[in-house]
């Protein structure tokens, strides 16, 4: 966009401009504080002892830094009757997210490739139906899915959760890849066909090497979605197979014993760490996925 900031009309006085500029920066800083405050409070609280929390102020820095809460959160906090901390559930989430992300991304890539480059009659209808599936409130499939998982013997298992995440992730992954591949001229496939390459060869040798950016976007999107999921996790898991979000909620809302706010905060940070890390490392792709996933149908 053109340079708006540079061309403030001359009629405005210089002093006014500087004041306006200051106001702008102050406002931006105030909002930055609003967004950072909860994170700050979480971190400081997690580093305080319970005594300090009770006597001190919410926004004060810890007088004495202690990592006890982190240790408890990781390996000692109680999720109901179990007291093993977040650790086993963290690994459940990893075990669940990694295959689900890989499978749904691969399927999405193939689907997108077919829909964008091998158009056939009805492909657009299929795409619309899949796209639509992205928008349903999942509550409407919870009951039959619970029964189906039961019938398949997958109820309360990690493979069952992987299955659910793959099924309901395909719509988005297909959308991402389809929108990426439609921008590639169809002559590329024609040239490769004349060169003698078949469907999978063209995908493997020509399209996949082109796809790194969209693979990154899709993997990040799927990983964030699956890692942060709570609804499927709480509906389709049982004690021992719960993902980290469910375990976190159980720790925080378990009614037994003293409320250990520092442990709650440490556990929350642990649960948030993987996606935060992804955001910090690959924020550009993260945002691209968010915008692509929501703006363009």
């Amino acid at each position, binding site marked *: *966009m*053109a340079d*708006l*900031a540079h*061309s403030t*009309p001359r009629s405005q006085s210089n002093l006014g401009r500087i004041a306006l500029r200051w106001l702008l920066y102050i*406002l*931006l800083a105030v909002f*930055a504080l*609003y*967004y*950072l405050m*909860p*994170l700050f409070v979480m971190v400081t609280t997690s580093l305080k002892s319970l005594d300090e929390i009770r006597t001190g*102020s*919410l*926004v004060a820095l810890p007088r004495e830094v202690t990592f006890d809460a982190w240790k408890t959160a990781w390996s000692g906090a109680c999720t109901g009757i179990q007291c093993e901390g977040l650790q086993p559930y963290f690994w459940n989430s990893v075990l669940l997210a990694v295959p689900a992300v890989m499978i749904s991304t691969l399927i999405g890539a*193939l*689907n997108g490739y*077919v829909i964008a480059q091998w158009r*056939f009659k009805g492909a*657009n209808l299929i795409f*619309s*139906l899949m*796209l*639509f599936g992205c*928008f*349903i*409130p999942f*509550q*409407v*499939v*919870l*009951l039959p*899915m619970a029964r189906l998982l039961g019938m398949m013997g997958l109820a309360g298992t990690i493979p069952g959760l992987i299955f659910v995440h793959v*099924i*309901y992730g395909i719509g988005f992954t297909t959308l991402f890849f389809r929108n990426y591949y439609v921008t590639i001229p169809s002559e590329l496939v024609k040239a490769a066909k004349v060169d003698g390459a078949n*469907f*999978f060869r063209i995908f493997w040798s020509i399209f996949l090497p082109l796809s790194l950016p969209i693979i990154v976007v899709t993997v990040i999107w799927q990983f964030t979605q699956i890692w*942060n999921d709570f*609804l499927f996790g*709480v*509906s389709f898991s049982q004690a021992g197979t719960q993902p980290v979000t469910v375990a*976190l*909620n159980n720790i*925080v*809302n378990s009614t037994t014993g003293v409320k250990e*706010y520092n442990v*709650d*905060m440490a556990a*929350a940070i642990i*649960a*948030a760490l993987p*996606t935060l890390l992804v955001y*910090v490392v690959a*924020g550009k792709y993260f945002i691209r996925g968010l*915008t692509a996933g*929501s*703006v363009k*149908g």
Partner: protein
Amino acid sequence: MSEWLENHLPKMVLAPSFIAVLVFVYGFIGWTAWVSLTRSKLLPRYEIHGFIQYDRLFASPRWDTAMNNLFIFGALFIVIAMVLGLLLAIMLDQKIRTEGVIRTIYLYPMALSMIVTGTAWKWILNPGLGIEATVRGWGFENFSFDWVVNPDFAIYTIVLAAVWQSSGFVMALFLAGLRSVDGEIIKAAQVDGIPTWRIYTAIIIPSMAPIFLSAFIVLAHLAIKSFDLVIALTGGGPGYATDLPATYMYAMAFSRGDIGQAASSAMIMMLVVFAIVVPYLYSELRAKTDG
């Protein structure tokens, strides 16, 4: 034979996903719709009994609260997040030197799980040790901020946390929109001597209508699906004060063992989503085929 295979391979590759979507999306919606018309309780039953579940649903005060809450929460959440997002985007569009850092700060909550967000805000808002206690500690003894445990105000804490989580994302959408406006039009307006604020109100913002629509759709969709945040922040309480349709459905399905109620409430949720999303998707897809 290989000729036939080569010609049909694309369809065969797409077929499993297509079937999966048909069964697990549309089939399951059908199942839920069917069950919502039966007297199912703990176990699903398949004899249709008309709209009794919907009658029960609409007669239930808890559902009434949930729908009211959805309306209050949805309206406030969407309006505040859009206004705040637009404001932040316009402010960030003024050649801010530290834009990258600020954008990162505004947007990071979107990477968090709603459960994490809920946990954090639950702690911050708790009257005993959170903001209320802190402000009192500064000497304002009469300061009161107990919304999270006050049935009349608890729903607003959900709004507060949801806005915190999503407004940065709305800002990112709007910022992208602001920057995609044709630079030549803006230059032309500047040459004509139109003041900056008029350029925004008369040229840039009207040209972003599609982005407003997208943001609205996304936020509305988030609002209707909101479940995790309520569970983590208030657990639906105090009492049923912060129940939303999603938590109502979950409670009926998994703790009350009332499948009929769960199914009918899920169907209502879906109808609300449809009413918002279908016109949008339809226009999007049609625009695409026309272009």
